[in-house]
């Protein structure tokens, strides 16, 4: 459609009686870091899951790298793509989950090489070499043969980031990557994410870390009740929020801190 990396137009998603997303329109440019903040249940995680099609959207349309995701347009109708096609589109995005979701029966290294070997059909030696480089990048090359249960939460999340990067995605999605971590482990994960942002990776981050959002992101999106309330540069949104809802939310977060 356009040159945006992600282009969401009037995206809607409904879970039974709950309208989780309503008319969400948002573009993300290549190389941009966008943070999404908002109260729980505001739809920010759902929106992230729609971008990589863990959820199917019910209305509107979403483009990724200029390609319509999840559907094929035939005249006035959108026909769902096959699971195989969706899996192919999904490969362009990496997803980092709140609860890490590492594969517990595999070592850190095997977690990182699993996708490249099974999905991208890389040679094991080649995948391993790339994986070691990625583990080095997240500072965990000495934990290559450790199983997830032997790692701290922060280490697990860094392995999870390496696992996503191994698929060479053009877009990285982070779903509250530090919310499940002990406070003293948050910093190491944010450090890795900062370095990733500096390297030019396009990132969409759902987070409650306002400090991180202010430092790293190009734009901050505030969502509430399934809608984008405002979308500004971090300084503007945090120091001069336009909407009352944004002000209330920021105040409630800052009070806790």
């Amino acid at each position: 459609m356009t040159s945006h990396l992600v282009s969401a137009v009037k995206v809607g998603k409904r879970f039974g009686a709950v309208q989780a997303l309503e008319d969400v329109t948002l573009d993300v440019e290549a190389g941009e870091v966008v943070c999404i903040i908002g109260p729980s249940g505001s739809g920010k995680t759902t929106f992230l899951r729609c971008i990589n099609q863990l959820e199917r959207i019910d209305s509107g349309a979403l483009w990724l790298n200029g390609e319509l995701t999840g559907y094929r347009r035939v005249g006035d109708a959108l026909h769902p793509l096959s699971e195989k096609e969706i899996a192919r589109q999904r490969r362009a995005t990496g997803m980092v989950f709140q609860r890490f979701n590492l594969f517990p029966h595999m070592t850190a290294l095997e977690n990182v090489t699993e996708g490249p070997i099974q999905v991208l059909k890389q040679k094991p030696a080649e995948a391993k070499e790339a994986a070691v480089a990625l583990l080095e990048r997240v500072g965990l090359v000495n934990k290559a043969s450790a199983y997830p249960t032997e790692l701290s939460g922060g280490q697990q999340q860094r392995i999870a980031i390496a696992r996503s990067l191994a698929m060479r995605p053009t877009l990285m999605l982070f779903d509250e990557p530090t919310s499940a971590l002990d406070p003293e482990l948050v910093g190491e994960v944010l450090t890795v994410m900062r370095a990733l942002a500096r390297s030019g990776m396009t990132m969409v981050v759902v987070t409650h870390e306002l400090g991180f959002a202010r430092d790293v992101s190009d734009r901050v999106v505030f969502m509430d009740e399934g809608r984008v309330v405002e979308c500004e540069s971090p300084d503007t949104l945090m120091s001069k929020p336009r909407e009352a809802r944004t002000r209330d939310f920021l105040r409630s977060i800052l009070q806790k801190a």
Partner: protein
Amino acid sequence: MRGAAELSFAEEVDVARLRHVRPRHYGRIVAVIIILAFAAFVIRAFAIGRIDWSTTREFLTWPSILMGLVNTLWMSVACMAIGIVIGVLCAVARGSPNPVLRVVAIGYAWFFRGTPVILQLLIWFNLGLVFPYLGIPGLFTVRTVNVITPAIATLLGLGLNEGAYASEIMRSGMLSVDHGQYEASKAIGMSYLQSLRRIILPQAMRVVVPPLGNEFIALIKTTSLASIIGFSDVLRNAQDIYYGNAKVIELLMVAAFWYLVVVSILSVGQAVLERRFGRGFASAARR
């Protein structure tokens, strides 16, 4: 007041040098004595009872006994393999969004768990009464009695029955795997089958191996039921011998010996499998 009185001895003696007496388990000692006495009684009874142990020893490696043992073994392995394959398919079907598949899987388990396995064996063996000929009309046909031998009937009967039980075990194993694992495997672009094979089933195995081992052990013994439709398992062949020489208990002991040997070996195999699939789960806890 009382607390003060108990604390007061700290002034009289050197607390650090007090000896801690280990608790005595009198109940255990009594239990050991009773059990040993009972075991001695049983062993003595069999030793002086009217069992000709030399006959048992003689028939332990009798050709038809060993042949029966081989039959019991391959039948158990084959039925278990059929059971696991059907079990995985049914477990996947139960979790499918397709209602037709779900109903088929539920109906299958309902039928095969709902009737005695001996009855199922008899139905398979007598299939020729319902369908005298099998095949695709016009292409090929065969007489049912020629196809459904005792071995085939046992394979179908026990295999399909085992599938119904294994499906519930596999289902519980797959349910035990966190939903985040499906999502993480999807997120790295895996197809559903890849995710099942590489991520979900290996983790389900950890939960599934103990009950499946249980099923396998039960199955080895259930193959003896197939003797009623003429399958020559170890028990059936032992019986055939004692019909001739009237050494009933001696030959039953031969069969008992071999069942115990096989089950013991299996228990070791199960422990190995459990360790294999427990990788990444137990390792941290054990250290």
